[in-house]
């Protein structure tokens, strides 16, 4: 009887539970809060056209961030995604112009991205160089390749149909949005529903234990870098198609935007913890800030300040939950 009384007086939501909830869903809470604020502030915001535009604009970043989630969960970093994007961008334009074949041109970036991703994976596993340094170095090599292909200038593509991938629509929805949805669904399944996904978590959580458990740690690492390279290549194909020109400086800063989105989403920078949906939410939280600034006509000089503050708030919320635990 007594014990029943005590149980009834216990609060259902404890501070610890609330903090744990904040830690787990900080990015979603901020995303929803920002959506509400922007919808109230501007009637132009919550329209089908604007939402589709936001997704379309951020598809390249989202592709890179989603694949980058695998890399970070596995305990590594990929700082070469922007450079792979640049190589893919100029390679697509070059192949299309030289061959006159649009499809061949747009297929080049994913293929090259996959190859460069495997190169990164081998650099990390064979040379035993930390991924941070290995991909920093490889990014310099890749950027140099992009410059050498173009001589520093850009390659314009005037072939009909080249822009269809980046700018074409079906039923008012950009092809890129559909590509992103399919890619996210596949990656979600790959991470949560396959043996490979479990290996990625195991490698990031404790590589030694994973090795002893029979997980092929190096092969898993090579595969996550290959995935990251493939995604950067796909992003490059979309980007180059959109502006119909390949540039060696294309994608500058994308690698840091992607990592910021992944961490902002709540994937652990130390590896072993994370989810695809988190990175998608992180990408669109950052995207909404930019969209909001443009729609509301705010001074762009304070955009970085606001973005940084929101990232700090989200990461701080997540960290608070961890400390209490």
């Amino acid at each position, binding site marked *: 009887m007594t014990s029943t009384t005590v149980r009834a007086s216990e609060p259902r939501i404890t501070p610890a539970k609330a903090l744990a909830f904040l830690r787990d869903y900080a990015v979603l809470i901020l995303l929803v809060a920002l959506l509400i604020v922007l919808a109230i502030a501007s009637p132009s*915001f919550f329209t089908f056209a604007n939402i589709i535009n936001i997704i379309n604009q951020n598809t390249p970043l989202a592709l890179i961030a989603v694949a980058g989630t695998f890399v970070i969960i596995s305990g590594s970093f990929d700082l070469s995604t922007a450079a792979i994007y640049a190589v893919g961008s100029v390679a697509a334009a070059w192949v299309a112009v030289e061959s006159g074949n649009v499809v061949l041109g747009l297929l080049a970036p994913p293929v090259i991205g996959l190859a460069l991703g495997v190169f990164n994976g081998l650099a990390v596993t064979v040379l035993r160089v930390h991924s941070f340094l290995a991909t920093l170095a490889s990014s310099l090599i890749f950027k140099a390749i992009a410059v050498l292909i173009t001589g520093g200038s850009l390659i314009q593509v005037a072939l009909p149909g080249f822009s269809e991938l980046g700018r074409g629509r079906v039923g008012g929805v950009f092809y890129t949005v559909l590509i992103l949805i399919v890619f996210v669904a596949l990656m979600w399944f790959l991470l949560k529903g396959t043996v490979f996904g479990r290996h990625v978590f195991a490698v990031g959580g404790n590589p030694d234990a994973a090795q002893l458990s029979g997980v092929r740690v190096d092969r898993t690492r090579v595969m996550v870098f290959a995935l990251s390279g493939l995604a950067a290549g796909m992003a490059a194909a979309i980007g180059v198609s959109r502006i119909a020109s390949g540039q060696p400086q294309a994608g500058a800063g994308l690698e840091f935007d992607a990592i910021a989105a992944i961490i902002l989403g709540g994937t652990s920078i130390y590896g072993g913890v994370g989810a695809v949906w988190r990175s998608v939410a992180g990408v669109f939280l950052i995207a909404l800030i930019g*969209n909001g600034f*443009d729609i509301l006509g705010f001074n762009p000089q304070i955009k970085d300040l606001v973005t940084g503050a929101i990232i700090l708030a989200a990461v701080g919320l997540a960290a608070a939950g961890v400390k209490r635990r």
Partner: protein
Amino acid sequence: MFTSNRRRWRLPVAASVVFLGASALTACSGDTGSTGASEDGYEIAVLLSSSQNGYNQAVAEGVQNMADELDADINLTLLDGAFNADTQLSQMETAGVGDKYDGVVVVPFDGPALAAAFPLSNSIPVASVLNPIGPEIEEMEPQVEGVVSTVAVPAGEAAAKQAEDVVSYCADIDPCKVVLLVGQLNAPLDVTREASYREVLEAEDNIEIVTTVEGNYDPDQSATTITNVLQSTPDVNVILSNADQQTKGAQIALEDAGIDPSSVYLTGGGGTTESIQNVRDGIWQADYINFPVSMGAAAMQQLYNALTGADVESYVNADEVGEVEPYATKETLEETPDFTGEWEG
């Protein structure tokens, strides 16, 4: 066993990578031919803001063209500033010591910051392209000891000219909604341009500046930001940009929004081949042309004059080096049908 096997072949792999890298470096240095000052000719350092940029490449091409034309055994060494003020400052300081170089042509990434390298220890002459070196970014006469010539146009003056043409276009439109699409609002030159735009446009009662957005000299980012702006202001009349890459992005955004780009006053700056064609086709209304190849050539000429004791023009107006009206419209371009622009950007 597993570990020792790995170690056994890890070293040769690493050594191979280092060897390949060293070989590549050796090959590259052979290409530049920069082996120090020659006894009869001149060693010139060409400091680019970035080697990964079409504009800078065009300047370098102009410098090379003039070096060839002068027929004076001039050897050029290109250095990449990587769009980094500190990197370029270090390169200038390095060029300013010892006897490796006889002169410098520079495209300053940050003119005020680069002034810290002056006076150079070896007192070699420096010619600046596009931007002046010194604290006053609108002052074209040399501001620091060692700079012998500046080939440029005051950024504010050029921006004012663009804005004045917008005022003319807007004369019969009330309100005339203008979007300012500028490069980077943390860069002194672009801040000057935006201030200049506003000074001219805000004096007109019928002109409404909707917003200022950053294009970062990137068509993709510009397309994104103009797409966003069009959500709240689909009836924009003018998109005033300081760079062709940005105007290209704005054009893409308008097309994606179902707006005919030629129905909006679109203008840019740079004079790329694509932008010249767009103006000829009536898709863009105007473009402020730069002549980077000619500017590079003019800088090399002035530097050579300084090295040989000939008369030097301390300020070369960059608008006058291309022999084409710099503020291009469809009408002005019809007078020069063979002009296609000096660079791809």
